[in-house]
C-alpha cells in the first residue's frame, strides 16, 4: 500500500513500504527511472531513500501546468504520481555492472583496521578478505554529498562506532559503523571505524554527475597496494 504526502509546498513524498529491503529499493529505483522518462512540468529532482521517493518541484510551473489535473500543486503532483504508479508495475530496474572500489587497507589510511580485527578475533587479512568478498548494495545517497548508505556488510564485521568521533576523517576513508559500511566522500568529522581508504573520488563537483554512486548500484571493494593507491590518486 503506497502513501503519498507533502513534506513542503514544493515537495511530495511517495512511500512504498516500511522496512529496509532490496526488493523495495529496486522498486523505488524502478519508479524513479520511470519518472525520469516521464517527468512532469516543473520537476527539479527526485530523491530516493530507504522506503520513499521524494519529488521536488517548482510550484509556479506546476500550478500553471494545465496537463496536470487538480486545483493545487499538491493535487496535481500527487495525482500524477498516483497514475504513474497505477499504469505501471515497474519493470525491475536494469542492473548496472558491479562498481569496483579499490581500497588500501590498514596503516595510516586505515587506523582502525587492527581494532576491528581484534574486536572480532580475526586476523587483519581475514577482515580484508571478508570486506572484499561481499557485494554491497546502495540503498540511498544522503548525509553529505555523494555519501552512500549501503547494505551488505558481512555480520562478522559488525562493529560499534568509535566512542569519540574524530574531528576530521579524510575524503575516501572506508569505514564500518554497526551493520553499515561506507565511504566518506568529503573530509568531515566522523565516528566510523576507519579500515582503509579509496583513491576514487566519491563526489566531484566538476563531474557532470558529481556523485559516483546512486541508489540501486552494487559495489565490491578490492584490496590494492599502497603504490597502486598512490598511482590512482594522481
Amino acid at each position: 500500500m503506497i502513501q503519498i504526502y507533502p513534506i513542503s509546498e514544493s515537495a511530495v513524498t511517495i512511500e512504498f513500504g516500511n522496512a529496509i529491503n532490496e526488493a523495495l529499493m529496486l522498486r523505488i529505483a524502478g519508479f524513479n527511472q520511470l519518472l525520469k522518462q516521464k517527468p512532469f512540468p516543473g520537476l527539479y529532482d527526485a530523491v530516493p531513500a530507504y522506503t520513499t521517493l521524494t519529488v521536488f518541484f517548482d510550484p509556479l510551473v506546476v500550478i500553471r501546468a494545465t496537463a496536470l489535473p487538480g486545483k493545487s500543486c499538491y493535487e496535481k503532483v500527487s495525482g500524477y504520481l498516483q497514475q504513474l504508479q497505477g499504469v505501471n508495475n515497474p519493470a525491475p530496474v536494469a542492473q548496472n555492472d558491479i562498481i569496483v572500489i579499490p581500497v588500501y587497507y590498514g596503516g595510516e589510511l586505515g587506523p582502525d583496521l587492527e581494532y576491528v580485527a581484534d574486536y572480532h578475533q580475526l586476523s587483519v587479512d581475514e577482515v580484508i578478505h571478508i570486506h572484499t568478498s561481499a557485494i554491497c548494495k546502495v540503498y540511498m545517497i544522503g548525509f553529505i554529498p555523494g555519501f552512500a548508505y549501503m547494505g551488505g556488510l558481512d555480520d562478522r564485521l559488525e562493529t560499534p562506532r568509535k566512542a569519540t568521533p574524530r574531528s576530521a576523517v579524510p575524503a575516501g576513508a572506508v569505514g564500518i559503523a554497526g551493520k553499515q559500511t561506507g565511504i566518506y566522500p568529503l573530509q568531515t568529522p566522523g565516528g566510523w571505524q576507519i579500515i582503509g581508504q579509496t583513491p576514487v573520488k566519491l563526489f566531484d563537483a566538476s563531474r557532470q554527475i558529481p556523485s559516483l554512486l546512486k541508489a540501486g548500484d552494487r559495489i565490491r571493494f578490492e584490496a590494492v597496494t599502497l603504490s597502486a593507491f598512490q598511482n590512482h590518486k594522481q
Partner: protein
Amino acid sequence: MGRKNYRSQAVPVSGAMDALSAALANKAVGNNDGDAVIEFTQAGAEFFTDSDVLIALSGDGACLNCGNKRLPPDRPVFVPAQTRLSLENNKEGSRAYLAVAGGWDVPQVLGSRSTYITAQIGGLDGRRLAENDKLSHGVNLSPLSQSIVNSLKGDAVNFPNWAIARSLFLSANRKIIRVIPGKEFNWFDADSATHFFSKAFAVGNNSNRMGYHLKGPLMSRTMEGELLSTSVTPGTIQVTNDGSLILLMADCQTTGGYPRIAQVAEVDLPLSAQLKPGDEIYFTELSWKDAERLYLEQQKDLQMLSRAIELRYGF
C-alpha cells in the same frame, strides 16, 4: 536561488537563508531574482569601490553607511568609484543581503552560484568571504539596471525616493512562525502537541546555516521505534532522541532519520532566517492548502513588484 537539481546526490540546496530579502535586493537593482547576492550573518564589513556600482541592501541584519550617512535599504543606491562603504551589524535581525547590478560574478557550480562550504563549492572558491577579497559584478546589466544607473549616476552616492516595502511581505508578528504538522506529528503525546503550539521556543547558540537548536519544552514520544532516513528540506522541524527540536535551514542535509514534527511554511522561512540566538518564537498551525496558497500569492505579489519597478523606469 539555490542548488535545486542535486538533492538526489545529497547536495544541499544552500542559497540565501532569507530568500525573500535576497530577492528584494536583486529586484531593487533590476537584477534577476537568481543573481548572486552576498549574505552577511551578524557581521560587519567595509568595502571600497574601484568602479561605479549600483547596489541594494535588504534584510534586518545590517545597515549600510557611507561616512556618517546612512544609506536606506530596499532601494537602489548608486555608488561612484573610489567610495568607502561600511556595513554595520544591526541587532534587529540576523542576516542582510547585498546585491549589485549585474549580479556578483562568481562561477556556477552544479547549476548555482550558492556557496556550500562543506563541499567547498560555489561562491568565491567555496568559502566565506575574507578581508581583501576582490569581487566584481557581471558586466551585462539588464536594460532595467542600466536605466536605474542612468537616473542616479553622478559624482556622489545617490538613491531614488522610492523603496520596496519589505514589511508588506512579512507577517506583522515576527515572533509567530506558521507551521504545518509533519508526517510524524502523531508520534508525540497530547501534552507535547499542546506545548508545541503554546509554549515559547528559543533559538540556541549553536545555530548555523544547517539548522537551529530550539530550546523549550521537550517532546515525548508515544510511538517508539526509529524513522528510516527519508527526505527533509529547509523548514523541517525534527525531534532528536532527547525530545528537543531542530529547525533545518538552507544548508541542511537532504535526508534525516529523526521524526518530523512540523514543517515551517515557506512564507515564514524568511522570518526564521532573521532569528538570532536567544530569540523566542511561537508556532501556530497552518494547513498544507493554506501554506501553498500563501506561497503562490507571495510569488504573485513579487512578480507584481517587479512589474511596478519596470513601469517606473518606462518598461
